[in-house]
């Protein structure tokens, strides 16, 4: 029987395994050094905050894997031998495969800061990071978080839940403004401060200092300010977790290089999820996408290929979501931090300062390009269809009620948004609205 080996039990690898099992009886093995069972990485923060227990982050009951005849191996892959079609586990066991899928995800970036490996310094990615934070939290008065992105703000929220003071160093002059346009970014700045987080914009890390026991004692910023702290969170992005492949002969860039069929330079060896790098980005996408949803979609696509129905990875319209403390964020289509040449942005912000939407559209044709929505939930299906049908921005504004996904009885801001849109974006040509 064919043996399909998947390295990594995250969303990509597990989605792949499930979909292969639906279509085939092949022998499937999933290898992970991190945990026995699949868990939702995005939920680690809720375990620390006490919203959930770790077992709640596991989407399947433990007997699910046996029932579906998926073999779980809790070991570390030391080396891959593509030509021999075999793997070395924990430096001592060799197993063979017919097809191999690398789905090892990411690891937190470290930029060679002095002291970056001290006790008390961590990213927020692995289950082990959570265990470390649990260990350090009871004796921590202040945490410094370095890097203003999605994981950084989650870590800040976690610390605040335990009443730990937080200093949040953000290199940019406004939170996540490489992705978020100014209005939204500043809204989040304000919300961060509302949660009593000491937000330091345009500030970076220079050095982490240890006490006599080798534990984190303080950091020094690039402005030469010393801040005492017992935990340092390094959340300046992630990069593919592929160090174990360096000697394998598999073509590597920043990630594992794959073609549109997610295949590497070796036949029968594939890579999916955060660790896969497309030779060229698909559409407006980056070559490496470290997002839950893209990992899942690669798993869905590759399952077809591996079960005799070769299928390119063709992600549909871009979407994503996050939650910044108490403000939910969703995005559909492309909204860039700065308008591109042929684009116009429409921005509306609620007077309460916690809800906003931004719609990007083509200035000439008025084609809808994308939406950022904060504090208002929107329907994925609606925008997916709008993007496929290449509808206009005016169509979207007219149909905001159908697009809305807020719970029942929520205040609708439809009218207000429509009036604002007419003011900002409807010229004499479009009086019909």
């Amino acid at each position, binding site marked *: 029987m064919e043996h399909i080996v998947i390295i990594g039990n995250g969303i990509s690898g597990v989605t792949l395994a499930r979909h292969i099992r639906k279509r085939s009886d092949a022998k499937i093995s999933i290898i992970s050094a991190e945990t026995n069972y699949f868990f939702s990485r995005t939920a680690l923060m809720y375990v620390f905050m006490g919203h959930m227990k770790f077992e709640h982050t596991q*989407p399947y009951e433990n007997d699910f894997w046996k029932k579906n005849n998926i073999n779980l191996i809790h070991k570390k892959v030391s080396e891959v031998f593509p030509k021999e079609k075999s793997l070395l586990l924990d430096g001592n066991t060799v197993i063979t495969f017919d097809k191999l899928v690398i789905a090892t995800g990411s690891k937190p970036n470290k930029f060679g800061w002095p002291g970056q490996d001290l006790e008390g310094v961590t990213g927020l990615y692995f289950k082990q990071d959570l265990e470390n934070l649990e260990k350090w939290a009871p004796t921590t008065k202040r945490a410094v978080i370095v890097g203003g992105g999605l994981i950084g703000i989650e870590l800040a929220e976690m610390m605040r839940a335990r009443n730990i003071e937080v200093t949040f160093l953000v290199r940019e002059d406004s939170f996540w403004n490489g992705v978020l346009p100014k209005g939204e970014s500043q809204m989040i700045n304000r919300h961060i401060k509302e949660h009593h987080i000491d937000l330091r914009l345009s500030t970076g890390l220079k050095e982490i200092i240890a006490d006599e026991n080798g534990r984190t004692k303080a950091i020094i910023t690039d402005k030469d300010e010393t801040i005492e702290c017992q935990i340092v969170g390094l959340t300046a992005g992630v990069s593919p977790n592929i160090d174990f492949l360096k000697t394998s002969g598999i073509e590597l860039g920043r990630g594992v290089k794959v073609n549109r069929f997610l295949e590497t330079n070796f036949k029968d060896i594939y890579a999916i999820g955060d660790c896969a790098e497309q030779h060229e980005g698909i559409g407006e996408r980056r070559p490496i996408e470290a997002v839950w949803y893209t990992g899942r979609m690669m798993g869905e696509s590759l399952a077809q290929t591996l079960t005799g129905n070769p299928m390119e990875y063709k992600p549909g319209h871009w979407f994503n979501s996050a939650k910044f403390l108490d403000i939910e964020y969703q995005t559909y289509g492309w909204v860039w931090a700065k308008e591109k040449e042929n684009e116009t942005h429409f921005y509306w912000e609620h007077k309460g300062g916690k809800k906003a939407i931004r719609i990007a559209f083509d200035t000439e044709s008025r084609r809808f390009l994308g939406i950022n929505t904060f504090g208002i939930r929107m329907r994925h299906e609606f925008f*997916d269809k709008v993007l496929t049908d290449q509808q206009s921005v005016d169509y979207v504004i007219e149909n905001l009620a159908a697009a809305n996904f807020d719970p029942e009885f929520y205040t609708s801001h439809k009218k207000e948004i429509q009036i604002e849109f007419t003011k900002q974006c409807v010229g004499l040509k479009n009086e019909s609205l």
Partner: protein
Amino acid sequence: MSKTVKNISIASQEHNDLNGTQRAGIALGLIGLFIMTLALLNVEFPNKGYWLAGSITAIFSGIVLYSNSFYLNRVEGISNNHVWTSSLTSRGTVAYAIGLILTSFYVVLYWFPQYLGLSSEEGAANTGIVSFFDPLSLLLNGKPASQWFVYGTLYTIAIVGLGYKFILKYRHNKYQLVRTISIMFFQLGFAFLIPEILEKLNPEKAYFAKDIKNMWPLNYYFFDEWHLKNMINGGNLGLFMLIFGVALIFIISPILTYFYGKRWYCSWVCGCGGLAETAGDSFRQLSDKSEKAWKIERWMIHTVLVLAFVSTIAVIFTFLTNNPDMSFITKDQFVWGIVIFLGVFTTALYVFKRKDMDADAIYTMLSLVAIMVIAILMNYFSGNQNIFFVDSYKLREWYGFAIGAAFSGVIGVGFYPILGNRVWCRFGCPMAAILGLQQRLFSKFRITTNGGQCISCGNCSTYCEMGIDVRSYAQKGENIVRSSCVGCGICSAVCPRGVLKLENDTPAGRINSNEILLGNDVDLMDLINQK
């Protein structure tokens, strides 16, 4: 993760020590309860009315003081911090202690009311906590208090007081706001004040239930001989209660369930649901989400369903046998009427709704068939009073003991801190299966999953009080159309990515299942889903 610090704070805050106001609030509430405890221990208070009013006021002010200070000082949003590290909310010592107190209270209430001060002799004055409530009882219904009046009052205090706390906790969520106000309104008005006042206005009439929202089979004695007689002899009000009660079950409830799902009752109106949603809110995460628990649930609610129907059919059967003059139908017509009704209904179910049935619905259908068969057997193998050689009133008594008292009170509420706040609703409610069948097959209600946005975090499943593994549907892009969903809306509230929405929409396409989630290539989705 062994390094979780246990604490025993009531406020489910591990590292956030309570501030002065919060402590004062808790102290004030406890003083109110302490005064009642003194009354229970037969301390005689002068001017009972003032002391009673004082203790109730203290409880309410304590809750208000505590909640205002706790919730209004933080930014609006989900506040589930430390739920799984606090003793009270994660089955710690405090949880077991409270569970024990509640359980003992129910045992005493149902089987040893004399310990509450109920006089064991006919006509003698009550003492203890029962007589402590006399002033309020006299004011409302003109009679001295009974143990049930004490219970009803405490129940209402719990729903209204902790409902206020719930509202502050979810003040950013209008669905929760409206729903909780509804629950508080129905408890205070329909379950408590109106029945008491009606009692006062009709002092000469024999007792019958005056809480119109407490429908059969939840109110299991509705069709008992004594209750039917008292309603029939109860003048206009009695007849209204009888007719409205029957209409509620067979007409009003199915219509409302069609439009809104069973949530219109379970989490907007019902008293059991009301207590679960307010006083029980801190324990919703304790429900068991395993498939095994789902199987037990299926067996239990259908056993209860069959018992409730059969025992009711039995008492009506006996009533008709004994009182042919009080009714316009004979017992034969009654039994065959039920058999034909259930026969037509289940046949129609099988013919038209087979495809939409899940295991829950199939069990309900089979239960109805079982009820039909038992009803026929009953007609041929029973004497006047004996149903299968068991006295029908004994059967009733056993049902009342096992389901009405032992389950709904002792386990249903007493075990809140251990098994979660909806144990009764999930495993024991005689309406659960029937409303559930309607919700699954004849309703516009569903929880819509927002395309491919789910990140499988598990907040929805964790906080589902009915033990539904919401995530297992959401992560597949599937709508949640489950018999047991009471529509509390908390899954949608705690979802960090805006994935879930409770809504009433066209029944078409309501039960769906996507192999491939939205977001992937459209051709792939079509290819897989249309196969």
